[in-house]
């Protein structure tokens, strides 16, 4: 395996970690929309020490993209300029509001505003994250912007049913991850039951929105559903993710928090693996079904080697520190 493959895999792992850790953060905001202020304290306590570190996985994936696959980064940030700007708006306001809510010296009426901003910008950010990522692999970005109108190149690639359904799926999935994570953090029986019931509903919602992805791909005449059907490995990943469900609910009832977290982590890993397998080795699928592969987009070998070295160094320093952080706060 060469550096191109290795670097791609690390980018994939960063995305999965972002989905899990960053997803739990976004999801916490979404859960608050539904259950109100009941969990504010639990969520603040659980997230405050770790949320900034959680979001660096996105930066890592992005840096790998522009360092290792610059052409893909250039296309992505041109065609998807508008939804990216919306994601960023969400990320900025949710992060700021979350910190303000926790750190404001006076806990007065302003708390309500922080909460409101935190919640709605969380759902905005994660919805558009899904929409943006969908445009990467959905086959909606035109191969060239020549002769196209503003709408055709800068709006149509993401403002469509397929991308929207992936966005909704991403939002629900992150709320589900957050719910599972919070099960280990709530201190009361009533809170546990509340989140438990909520996570069940979220699970059903994620299955429905997952089906919607395939249906919209079919309706829009995209190739995603066909590519999925043609990949026995992807289907297997999807099946395993589904088969894990009864075990997960058993663990919820038994209150086996760590077993639960590991199972859900595995579930997310399988969902992403299913996607990565379809995608490999394409980075971008264009609307005329031509593709930009990791090999075509890759930076020169010297860069890939150095990038891999820098990432390996990063992994060696980051993981022990992360372990320490979580050990201090999640004992």
């Amino acid at each position: 395996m060469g550096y191109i493959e290795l670097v791609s895999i690390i980018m994939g792992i960063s995305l999965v970690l972002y989905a899990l850790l960053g997803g739990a953060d976004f999801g916490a905001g979404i859960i608050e929309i539904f259950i109100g202020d009941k969990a504010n304290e639990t969520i603040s306590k659980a997230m405050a020490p770790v949320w900034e570190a959680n979001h660096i996985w996105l930066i890592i994936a992005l840096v790998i993209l522009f360092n290792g696959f610059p052409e893909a980064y250039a296309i992505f940030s041109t065609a998807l300029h508008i939804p990216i700007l919306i994601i960023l708006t969400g990320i900025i306001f949710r992060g700021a509001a979350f910190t303000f809510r926790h750190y404001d010296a006076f806990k007065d009426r302003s708390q309500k505003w922080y909460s409101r901003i935190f919640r709605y910008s969380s759902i905005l950010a994660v919805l558009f994250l899904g929409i943006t990522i969908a445009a990467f692999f959905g086959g909606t970005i035109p191969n060239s912007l020549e002769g196209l109108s503003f709408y055709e190149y800068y709006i149509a690639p993401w403002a469509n049913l397929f991308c929207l359904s992936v966005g909704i799926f991403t939002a629900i999935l992150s709320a589900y991850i957050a719910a599972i994570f919070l099960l280990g953090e709530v201190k009361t029986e009533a809170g546990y039951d509340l989140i438990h019931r909520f996570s069940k509903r979220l699970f059903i919602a994620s299955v429905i929105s997952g089906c919607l992805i395939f249906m919209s791909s079919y309706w829009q005449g995209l190739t995603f559903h066909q590519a999925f059907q043609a990949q026995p490995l992807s289907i297997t990943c999807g099946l395993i993710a589904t088969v894990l469900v009864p075990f997960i609910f058993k663990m919820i009832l038994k209150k086996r928090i760590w077993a639960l977290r590991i199972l859900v982590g595995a579930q997310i890993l399988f969902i992403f693996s299913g996607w990565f397998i379809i995608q490999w080795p394409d980075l971008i699928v264009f609307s005329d079904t031509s593709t930009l592969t990791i090999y075509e987009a890759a930076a020169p070998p010297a860069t890939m080697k150095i990038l891999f070295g820098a990432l390996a160094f990063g992994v060696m320093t980051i993981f022990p520190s992360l372990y320490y952080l979580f050990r201090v706060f999640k004992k």
Partner: protein
Amino acid sequence: MEDILAARLQMAISLGWHIIFACIGMAMPFFMAYAEWKWLRTKEEIYLDLAKSWSRGVAIFFAVGAVSGTLLSFELGLLWPEFMKHAGPIFGMPFSLEGTAFFIEAIALGVFLYGWNKIPPKAHWWSGIIVGISGVFSGIFIVSANGWMNSPSGFDFVNGEYLNIDPVAALFNDAWFTQAMHMTFAAFASTGFAVAGVHAIMLLRGKNIRFHKEALKIALIFGSIAAFAMPITGDLAAKDIAKRQPAKLAAMEAHYHTEKGAPLIIGGIPDDETKEVKYALKIPGALSFLAHGDFQAEVIGLDQIPEDERPPVAITHFAFQIMIGLGALMMGIGLLYFFMRWRKWDYLGKRWWLWLIALATPFGFIALEAGWTVTEVGRQPWIIYGVMRTEDALTPMPGIQYSLYFIVLIYTLLTLAVVWLMSRQIKSIHIKYNA
């Protein structure tokens, strides 16, 4: 508004805004660690309070800095995709290293902010130091990437293609060291003066005297020492620019005509039409000496730079004057401070002195912004000096002005929020002490 102008303004505002938070992230952890160290040694409650109060402010600044930094890493592509497409593989290395440094910083800050009673005091103190060290490293890496734009290296540019890429050589480009040194000290000088100024204002209002006195002392030590390092590191940077980017030096100095024994032009209004600087103070031979260490050396003027490769003179010159002027003032204040400490004067009891410090609150950050204006505007019309023009890097997307308005709105709201929160933090200190 033209797209290129809108894009440049948006980038300038985003960077200029983020830099303030980045500098606070570099310097503040050391102030906190210093206070905590005094607490560990003296067991005086006031130092613990100080470390904790500062850390609450830092938490707010850090969060806002982190999210505005996220915006920046995307903005590079949103506004300059053509630049990133070619530059990414060459100068991406400092960014990937910065990713690691920032990760460590975020982790250590999490431990510092929330670990007061969870880990041993020594370990807690170390977590603060690690926040600072990784913050400084983050800054150095990003400045190295900027250094590469000023002093591109680590590739061969042949017929429009970027060949023989060597990311390590790009990381250690000719400009990285002087720029990083100057910037790191600038972070300490500007943060030190800003923090000292805020506490001086509180002392003038006669509130919580002891608390604000201790705070002011710590901040001013860092700020003053750094203020002395500024002209030294700045001189190194200027000599380097004279060698590599004569156009930038000429614009900084509004030096229109190539000549031997060139004068240093202080102040004045440059006129691009007549190629003269009106109302300026000129010190004969001083520019030659500062740039090349010889009063008779020849300094290249703007006349030797092709017309379409000249940076905007007025902005660069004014920004440079502002930086130098404020830097000199800060150094003067630092000098006075050390003198009064040496003579054991009760300087914190003197109102004129507190007024001076209060007045100097924004000096460091204004000088910092001016300095970056010199670096960035002075590099124009290039995005990669001598290789790629800024206009060629621009996104093809039309209507960038709307993106600019949107960003301005976001930053205005955030600025108001941060100012409001900080004033409430300060108010809470008073309530705590008066209770």
